[in-house]
């Protein structure tokens, strides 16, 4: 789960990390009032769950409240990579004496949490990784004892910070790790992390993502979810225990299992089609789940045909077939439907489907070819 910059800043501040003062506005008027209150230079920043706001014109430095009004008028409602801007953050202008990048993130190969930093602040870390990988400094936190103070200092010294800046940086890097662990984050990023006009460290822009599997113990984080930023169908799917990811093609897919679902999408593409979605209906594909799955897939007007791909394991093929038949009584499926049913009791399942006029095949590849042909017909 992602949250907005202004929300991330609030969480960092709560954990004692100094952030640049800012407030969020939903209208140009609010933006003007906040800017007036701050006085002087402010930055108006689009709050959307995507990067590249700057390039898209979603970030403007302005000199006064009237300019803030104007900038907010332009930015609010803007579309940035498919995300509509509903809020802007009005942040005080900061004098930057020094800027670096710092984050806490999983080092997946090491199975440890790491602090990652770069002397090139304000630049996307992926870009630094590509162009100047030696500028990136990392330290893996001890999986048991956490990030040691000496490690935070090592990062600071490796960034070639002046001795006077080291302790301040290290103290905040330690807090960054603590925020990561205590909030069950998957990313906590400060970029740029600056030394301001007063000579102290300050987070100028921050970003946080959370582990969905741990949200049950963070109800206050769950409240930060911005429904406007999330795909409605994906949320609906989640509520029903179905994994759903919206894609851009025309072949709707209903599959049991995440791996098989990915493989089904691949098969569709190899057959010359483009999948409209990833959909893992879960273990027991019963009437209710299949009905929901049909509804999720059919919510997309681009869908021209549907492929159901089931491998009967512990859940038997005939049971799944019964679920499909029952679901078809609940949902009016107007596009062509191709079913592939394999594994346990697949024959019984196919017979059952055939009684209801549905031909089910045994081969994933053939089913993919059929559904692509059906969509193009």
């Amino acid at each position, binding site marked *: 789960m992602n949250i907005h910059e202004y929300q991330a800043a609030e969480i960092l501040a709560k954990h004692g990390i100094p952030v640049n003062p800012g407030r969020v506005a939903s209208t140009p008027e609010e933006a003007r009032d906040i800017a007036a209150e701050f006085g002087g230079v402010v930055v108006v920043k689009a709050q959307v769950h995507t990067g590249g706001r700057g390039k898209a014109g979603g970030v403007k430095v302005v000199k006064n409240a009237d300019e803030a009004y104007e900038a907010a008028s332009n930015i609010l409602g803007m579309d940035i990579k498919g995300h509509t801007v509903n809020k802007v953050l009005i942040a005080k202008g900061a004098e930057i004496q020094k800027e670096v990048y710092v984050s806490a993130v999983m080092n*997946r190969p090491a199975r440890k949490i790491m602090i990652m930093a770069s002397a090139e602040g304000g630049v996307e870390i992926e870009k630094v990784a590509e162009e100047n990988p030696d500028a990136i400094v990392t330290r893996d936190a001890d*999986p048991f004892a956490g990030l040691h103070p000496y490690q935070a200092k090592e990062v600071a010294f490796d960034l070639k910070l002046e001795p006077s800046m080291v302790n301040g940086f290290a103290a905040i890097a330690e807090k960054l790790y603590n925020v990561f662990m205590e909030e069950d984050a998957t990313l906590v990023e400060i970029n740029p992390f600056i030394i301001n006009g007063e000579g102290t460290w300050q987070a100028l822009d921050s970003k946080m993502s959370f582990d969905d*599997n741990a949200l049950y113990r963070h109800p206050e984080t769950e409240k930060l979810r911005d429904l406007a930023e999330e795909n409605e169908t994906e949320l609906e799917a989640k509520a029903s225990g179905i994994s759903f990811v919206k894609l851009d093609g025309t072949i709707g897919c209903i599959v049991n299992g*995440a*791996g098989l679902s990915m*493989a089904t999408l691949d098969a569709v593409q190899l057959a010359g089609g483009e*999948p409209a979605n990833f959909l893992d209906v879960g273990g027991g594909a019963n009437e209710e789940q299949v009905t929901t799955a049909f509804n999720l897939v059919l919510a997309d007007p681009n869908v021209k045909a549907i492929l159901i791909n089931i491998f*009967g*394991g*512990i859940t038997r093929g005939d049971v799944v077939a019964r679920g499909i038949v029952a679901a078809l009584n609940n949902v009016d499926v107007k596009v062509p439907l191709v079913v592939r049913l394999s594994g346990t009791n697949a024959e019984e399942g196919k017979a059952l489907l055939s009684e209801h006029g549905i031909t089910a095949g045994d081969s994933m590849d053939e089913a993919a070819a059929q559904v692509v042909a059906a969509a193009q017909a």
Partner: protein
Amino acid sequence: MSILVNENTRLLVQGITGREGSFHTQQMLEYGTNVVAGVTPGKAGQEVHGVPVFNTVQEAVAATGANASVIYVPAKFSIDAIYEAVDNGIELVVCITEGVPVNDMVAAYHHVKTKGARLIGPNCPGVTTPGKGKIGIMPGFIHAPGKVGVVSRSGTLTYEVVDALTKAGLGQSTVVGIGGDPIIGTSFLDVLELFQNDPETEAIVMIGEIGGDDEEVAARFIKEHVTKPMAGFIAGRTAPPGKRMGHAGAIISGGSGTAAGKIAALEAAGVAVADRMSEIPDLLKAKFTA
């Protein structure tokens, strides 16, 4: 021989009185697995399908000599179950549960290593040694005893490939579902090493997917150490970057973890990587005779 599950396996089921635990205990018993004990706190003295239930792993191990365990407890209790198992000397722990918080797995992963135990999963279908026993939730009857070792990050894709192998006359030595989470106890590399050293395994099938770099790490190991013929498949060629594809670990982030990169690495290591799952039996047959 075979790997992980064999005649000496004495299995303990953690969470045996739950719906999943009870159902799969029956399935495992039917497949011939030596299930010796179950644990559910407060339920000591009960029996589930004839298997005695204990309050703690400690009591269960003392009473039955269990040396392997399978975890069916809910996600929020799984980490504790893993610690309880390995702290009480269980050598092989298979965690089926999906949804375990990933940051909790960091310490648990390293703790298991320190203890010298082996964890499979979490979020995995388990391990099956055809004809000898199964630990987990795999449908037993699709398997056939044989010489092909199978290792996979996905549950249903494991069944898919095992079914295809069996139908093509290629039985399996052991089938290992290592799980779809970002941090799992046992990686491809670990299982490949076991297969390479297992005299009953003569060929290997490896099913990977997008996310992380375990396939790339495995490819380096294969190049240097694996002499047995291998076929493979990587799911998720069509997955867009930044989106989790069902599995918590199946995500392309910052340009790394793509299917293309994994396929290239495996091919460079001499693995025959299939475009379609269905091609795997033939690719393998081209390299070895069962």
